Structure formats: structure tokens, C-alpha cells
């Protein structure tokens, strides 16, 4: 279970000014639930996702995941927390352009020094699922946008995360690829994973497998 308790997030801008990105937010996401965060650009959706993944810390309040106060963890432990629990599909994918598709997918596993046989199997499975077998050795910067996103999804899933996060997943895709992504998403729903999507794309608004839609405006939940 994911819990945001009275979370306020401010960003410093320049020497004195600050932006209030989130104002006293409370949010619960159940295990296995699929949640859509919607709202206009700048409303604070990405900030919520970062806080859940402990990529950032709240100014006030706390973030609790499976009983763990991740907003209070020391830096090294937030990394471990992400490695074990979070699969994050970033808006700009955040792949390493000079690595191949396969190498990008391996990256999250490297620190845990995995067994090579197990790793090979896992990669085969993922690349088959996302129809990327022929692209394994291709450098990511030479892949199309849709392919890059599928590599990013494979990387997010390689650790079998219990929380999957997608930030504006259709922002850089055309209609056809967006619908493909939604198909992938549907398959990821299995009752164990919590999935949180941030998007203002109307394609998401009436999908029946999405359990809940949350409107964000100016850093507040409506």
C-alpha cells in the first residue's frame, strides 16, 4: 500500500523564490490498484510520482510504502528501495542512448550481480513480450520512439517491481502506439502490482481496467 500523508512539496527557484508544487496532499493506493493521476501540465502529477519512488523528498509530510517511511530513508536506502519495489517508466524514457536495448534493460540488475543464466532467460522473456527480440543489440539512440518506450518498459519490469509508475506514457506517441501501450498496461494488471499513471491524455479517461481517476489541480487533489 502507498500512502501520502499531508504532503507539501516546495521547490526553490533561484536564491529566494519558491514554487509550491503540492499542497497538503493525502493519497492512498491499494495493492493491485490501477490509478490515473490527471490534471493539466504543471499541476503536480510528476512530483507525486517522484515522491512515491523516493526520487525526491517532501518538504512537509511523509510518504509510506508497505509500512516503510520512504521519505525518511537515507540516500543509499532509497536506491535499494527503488531497486526492489519500483518500476518507473519516465516521460522522456531516460534510457542511456549509447547502450544497446539489452544493456539498458540489464542496468537496474547490475548492482545485485545476478546469475547469468537466470538473466539470459529473463531478457529473452521480456524482449519476446515486447516484440523486441530483433532489436536487442541495437543502440537505443537508433530505435524509434515506440521501440524506445518498450525498452523503457522492459527495463522498468526487469526487477519484477510491485509498484509500476508511468509518467505521461503517451505524450510522445501517435494514436496507434498509444493504443498499443494501453494494451501492454492492461496485461500488467494482475492483482499484485500497483500501477500509477500520470497523464492528461483523454485516451485514458474511460478505460474500465483503471480503478480510480484522481484529479490534480494546482498541487491539490480535487
Amino acid at each position, binding site marked *: 500500500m502507498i500512502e501520502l500523508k499531508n504532503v507539501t512539496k516546495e521547490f526553490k527557484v533561484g536564491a529566494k523564490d519558491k514554487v509550491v508544487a503540492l499542497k497538503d496532499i493525502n493519497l492512498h493506493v491499494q495493492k493491485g490498484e490501477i490509478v490515473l493521476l490527471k490534471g493539466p501540465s504543471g499541476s503536480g502529477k510528476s512530483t507525486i510520482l517522484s515522491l512515491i519512488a523516493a526520487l525526491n523528498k517532501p518538504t512537509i509530510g511523509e510518504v509510506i510504502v508497505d509500512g516503510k517511511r520512504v521519505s525518511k530513508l537515507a*540516500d*543509499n536506502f532509497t536506491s535499494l528501495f527503488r531497486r526492489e519495489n*519500483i518500476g518507473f517508466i*519516465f516521460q522522456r524514457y*531516460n534510457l542511456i542512448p549509447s*547502450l544497446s536495448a539489452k544493456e539498458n534493460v*540489464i542496468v*537496474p540488475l*547490475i548492482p545485485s550481480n545476478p546469475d547469468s543464466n537466470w538473466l539470459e532467460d529473463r531478457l529473452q522473456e521480456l524482449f519476446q513480450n515486447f516484440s523486441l527480440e530483433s532489436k536487442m543489440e541495437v543502440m537505443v539512440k537508433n530505435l524509434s520512439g515506440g521501440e524506445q518506450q518498450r525498452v523503457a518498459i522492459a527495463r522498468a519490469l526487469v526487477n519484477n517491481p510491485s509498484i509500476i509508475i508511468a509518467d505521461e506514457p503517451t505524450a510522445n506517441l501517435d494514436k496507434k502506439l498509444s493504443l498499443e501501450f494501453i494494451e501492454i498496461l492492461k496485461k500488467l494488471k494482475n492483482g499484485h502490482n500497483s500501477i500509477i499513471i500520470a497523464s492528461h491524455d483523454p485516451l485514458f479517461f474511460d478505460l474500465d481496467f483503471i480503478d480510480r481517476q484522481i484529479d490534480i489541480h494546482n498541487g491539490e487533489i480535487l
Partner: protein
Amino acid sequence: MKSKINLFLFDFSVLSIFRRGSKNIFIFFVFTLLIFLLSSVLFISNSIKSELDTTLNALPDITVQRLQAGRAINMPLSRLNKLLAIDGVNAVIPRVWGYYYFANAGANFSVVGIDQFEDQYRDLYTKLCDKFNFDKLKKDSGMLIGSGIDQMLKNNFYQGYFNFVKPDGSLAKVKIDGVFKADTALESNDVIVMPIKKVREIFGMKPDEAVDFVIKVANPSEIPNIARKITEIYPDTRVITKEDLKISYQNLFDYKGGLFLALFVISTFTFFMIIYDKASGVSSDEKREIGILKAVGWTIDDILKEKFYEAFVISFVSFITALCLSMFYVYFLNAPLLRNIFIGYSNLKPAFDLPFSFDFQTFAIIFFLTVPIYIAATIIPSWRVASMDADEVMR
């Protein structure tokens, strides 16, 4: 805890070196060049130092010169007996030697006289010389010459002999019956050895005079005492002890030391410039990459380990390459160009080989002056980036 080293991480580091290929090739070249310069300078000075140590050990205990008006003049052989009578003096050896100016090459040869080419020295000379025939030497009353002189005479078309010009303008033709091996010593390079009689003839010296006396002492701690007694007996002499000579030799060496120190400073300075450049920033691509690694679950330690491997591989490969190159350059090629800076002992431009002299200490000095500094310079800025929030770094 897994103690097995993480090969995935190591592979990733090596891959990263190649991914940033052009930048790393540049670093590799500059770094290799600097280590090469530094180690060459140290190897050459080590070589010269070990050569010098051998020379210093071979110095006479006491040298006695006769002075007139502050200049050294010849020493009458008649003074020999009184000196021999001093307690603690084992032997007094009159030396006949001088500098012969060879105008064609603009160089001075040191001409040293020895009593005779006696049979007891047959083995010694055979060991010291190339192309040497003892019997011929005795018969000719010829000379042995240093390899530098050999080279110079050949350049001036002398084959097998040399014509010395005597003070009265007539010529003394002396046959060359041996050349000191090139690796014997720095100072044998511009030396000519021939019978005392011949030296006297060439320089026009009287038969009852020597240039100076060399004294052998039974007990080295007696040297100052004996030196004092000599000046009491002959107030017109200057007595030079082994200690005095050592100091002046070492001054000579320190002067050379200063020159290579300058080189050393220049190379370290350049080195630190590069380090500074690296330390003052991580490229925006690398920065973003660190952010990504952190976002997908790498800890700061993982990131630093990766950077450590990268820096270690580059700097260690550079280090080994540079060391091999510089050994080849110094000990095999005899350090062309750089050598000229160091070798000023001789009035000749010497052609001697640098003797191999390499110790673990030098190896360690070169290593610690380069590899860890480079690693630190790479890791510290990465560490700064890795400690920031991943969110912040990726933006």
C-alpha cells in the same frame, strides 16, 4: 555478503570507457605521455646516480696538489718519501695526467698516465675494453681510449692512431690499442690511458715531476689527521680528501638535479591542469547518466565503484604502457634528446649507455604520483553528482 567481484559492473565500466571513446583516447594519450616523461626523467637520474655512486667509491682517499700563486703546478717526485713516512699512509702514487685540447672537435680529452701496461692488469683491461689486444698494446706502447673519444676520432677520420701536437709543435703519433666498453662509466667516456712516459712527452713535462699525488690510507678515520700533517710538512700544498670530492661531485649532480626538477615540475603542472579540468566538472551527458543509474536503483556506492573501475582501468593501462615505453626509451634507445639535459659531466658529448638501474621504490613513486591522483580526480566530481537527488540530476 558476496565477496565475488561483480563482473557485470566491471564489464559496464569497460564498456563505458569505449562508449566515451574519443574523450578517453585523449586522456589516455596525455596521461601516458606525462607518465612517460616522469618515469623517463626518474630512470635517467637513477641511472646517473648509480653511476655516480660507483665513481664516488672509487675516489682516492687523499689527493695532494702543489700550489703556486693559487694555481696548481707540478709536484716534484722527491717529495714522495716524506709523505710515505707519515703514520697511517699505505701508499703514495704520483699521477701524471692532463687535458688535451682537440681543436677539430672543440673538446678536451683527459689523458691519464699509468706506470706500465703490466701483465697483472691484463685481465682488468680485457674486461674493460672492446677490441683489445694486450700484447700489441705493450709492444706499441699505445693507448686505450673512451668510447666517446673513439667516436669523435672516427668522425675526424682517425683510424687506429691519433697525432698529438706537442708543445713544441711536433707530432706524437700514438696507436689506439683498445676502446673502453661503452657501458663502463660516465667518466671513462672522454678518457685516454697511456704510459706515463708518453703523457710526459705529449705535455712536455719533466721526468722527475708528477701532476699530483694520490695517497692511500689504512684507516679512513685517520684521513683528516693525515691531511693536516701533509700541510704541515709542505705548506705549499692543497690537500683534497675524499669527502671534499664527494661534495663537489654531488653539487654537480644536484645542479643536474635542478634541471630535471624543472622538467618534473612542468610535467606535473600539466598533469594537474588536466586533473583540474576533469575535477571541475562532469559533462552533462555523464551527469544525466548518473541520475538515471540512481533512479533505477544504483546506490552512490555502486556508482562510485563503477567510476573507480573506469578510472583505474584507464590510468593503469596508461601507467603500464608509459612504463614500458620509457624503459625502452631510456635503457634501450639510451634516452635521445632527454639525455642531453642530464649529461654535462664531460666536455665531450658522451656516447655512453645508461646502465640499467630500476628499483621498486621508483616504481612506487611513479605509481602513487599518477594513478591514485587520477582516480581521485575522476571520482570526487562523480561523487558530488551522485549525492544529489536523482530527480534533480536527470532534469
